[in-house]
C-alpha cells in the first residue's frame, strides 16, 4: 500500500476536545460499548464529568472517521452484554494520539506549575498539600 498507510503525525490531531480525551482514556485499557464509556468516565471522575449520549456518539463518529477508534468484532463479556451492543477500541493511531495529548497536557501542567498556577508535586507524586 506504500504511502497510503504511512503513519500520520499524532500532533495533527491535537489538542483533543475534553469529550474525546475522556473517551480515549476510558478506552485506554479495555474495549467498551457506549454506555460502558459513559460509566467509566463517571466512575473515573467521581461523577464530576458525565458524557451525554449526543456528545459521546458525535465524538465517536469523528474519532472513527479520523481512525482513532474502531469497532471491535469481539464481545469481551458476551455472556453479560446485549449482543447488539457495539464495542469500541483505540486504534494504534488513537493510542499514539492519546499519548501525545497527555504529553502536551503534562507540558502545560509543568509550565503552569513553574508560574505558580498549579500545586507543586510532592516526592510521592501526589500534589503537595494532598
Amino acid at each position, binding site marked *: *500500500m506504500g504511502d*497510503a498507510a504511512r503513519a500520520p503525525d499524532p500532533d495533527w490531531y491535537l489538542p483533543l476536545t475534553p469529550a474525546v480525551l475522556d473517551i480515549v482514556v476510558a478506552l485506554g485499557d479495555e474495549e467498551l460499548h457506549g454506555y460502558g464509556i459513559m460509566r467509566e468516565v463517571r466512575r473515573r471522575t467521581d461523577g464530576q464529568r458525565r458524557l451525554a449520549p*449526543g456528545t459521546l456518539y458525535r465524538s465517536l463518529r469523528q474519532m472513527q472517521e479520523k481512525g482513532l477508534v474502531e469497532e471491535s468484532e469481539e464481545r469481551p463479556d458476551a455472556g453479560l452484554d446485549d449482543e447488539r451492543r457495539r464495542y469500541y477500541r483505540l486504534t494504534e493511531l488513537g493510542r499514539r494520539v492519546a499519548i501525545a495529548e497527555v504529553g502536551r497536557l503534562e507540558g502545560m501542567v509543568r509550565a503552569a506549575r513553574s508560574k505558580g498556577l498549579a500545586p507543586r508535586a510532592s516526592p510521592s507524586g501526589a500534589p503537595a498539600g494532598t
Partner: protein
Amino acid sequence: MAPHDAGQRDRRRRGTALILAASARLYGASLALYPKAFRRRYAEEMRRDFCELSREGLEEGGGGELVRVWRATLSDLAVTALKERSTMLARNAYLPVDPRIAATAVAAVVLVALTVTVASLVKTPQYEASTTVLIGKQGSGQPAPLEMEVQELQQLTMTLAEAADSRPVAEDAIERLGLSVTPDEFLERLDAEPIENTQFVELSYTDPDPKRARWVANTVGDVLSRRVSEVGPSADAVTATLWESAQVPEAPASPNPLRDGLITLVSGLLLCVGSALALPRIAASGVERSAFWATGAARRPVGGARGVSATLSTAEAAKEKELLEALGRRWALTVAGAALETSLTVEEAERMLSTLAAKGHLEVRVEHGWLLYSLWEGDAPI
C-alpha cells in the same frame, strides 16, 4: 412477606417501567433532530444508553435524578444535533461558496456601504430651490385648430426650457446678482425642465446656501421672462410669466447618507450573490475537467464526481483536483495520507474524502484499522 407489601412493590415496579418506557419513547422521537445518516448509525445505541441512564437515575435518585438526566440530555441533544447538522451541511456542499469567503465578501460590502455613508455625511449639503414659469402665447386674433395650438405650445415650452438653461441667461443672471462664478459653473448648478403635458417650465438651482439657491432661482425666472418679452413684442408674442416663486429649501437635496449607504449595500450584496452563483460554475467546469481527466475518473459515466464540483468554490475545486490527483497517483489514501500528499489540512482532507465517498465517488474500506479511500476500479489510472 406480607401480600400487601408485595403488591405495593409490584405497583411501584410497574410505575417505574411505565415512566421509563415513556421516557425512552420521547427520547427516541427527539433523535429525529439529528441528520439521517447519524441517526441510522447511532440512534439505536443512543436510545439504549439513554434507557440505561434513566433507569440508573431512577434507581439511584428517584424522580429528581431522572429530571436531571433529562435536563442534561436535552441540552446536549440540542447542541450536538445542531453541530451535526451543520457538519452535514458543510460536507454536502449545499452552499455554493465557502462560508468564510461569503462572510468576507459580505463584510467587505458592509464596510464599503459604511464608508459611502460616512463620506456622504461629511460632504457639504446642497440645497435646491425651484421656481415655475408659465409659457404662453398672446392671441393673434386668428383662431387655429385646438390640436395644433396645444402641440405648438408644448414645443414652445420645450424650447424655452432649453433657453433658460443657456449661456445668455446664465450671464445675465450672474451680472444681475453679482456672483463670482463662471457661466459654465452656473449652468452646472441650474436645471430647467418642462413639466410634461403642461406649459410650465421648472427652474431649479442648487447651492450650499439655501437662501442663495432661492434668490438665484427666482432671478433666473425673471431673466427668462424679460428676455422672452424682448424677443418679439408682436401680436402673437410668446410670454414667460413667473408662476410660482422659489421658497427657501429646508432640507438639503443631497447628500442622503442613508439612501447612499443602502443603495451601495443592496447593489454590493446582489453583486456578491451573482458572483457566488456564476463564478464557481465557470471555474469549476475548467478545473474539474482537468482533474478528472488527470485521474481517469472522467470515464465514470453516471453520477460522476463532475456533478459534485459544480457547486464548489474555485478554491475548493482546486483542492478537490489536488486530492483526486493524489488518489490517482496513490490509488488508496487515508485521511492523514491525503493530507501528506496534498496541501490540504487533515480536516479538509477528511471533509472532502467523506463527501466524495458519501456521494459514491470513492470506495471506502477498512484495512488494519485504517479507513482507506480509493477511486473505484474503473476510475483508477491505467
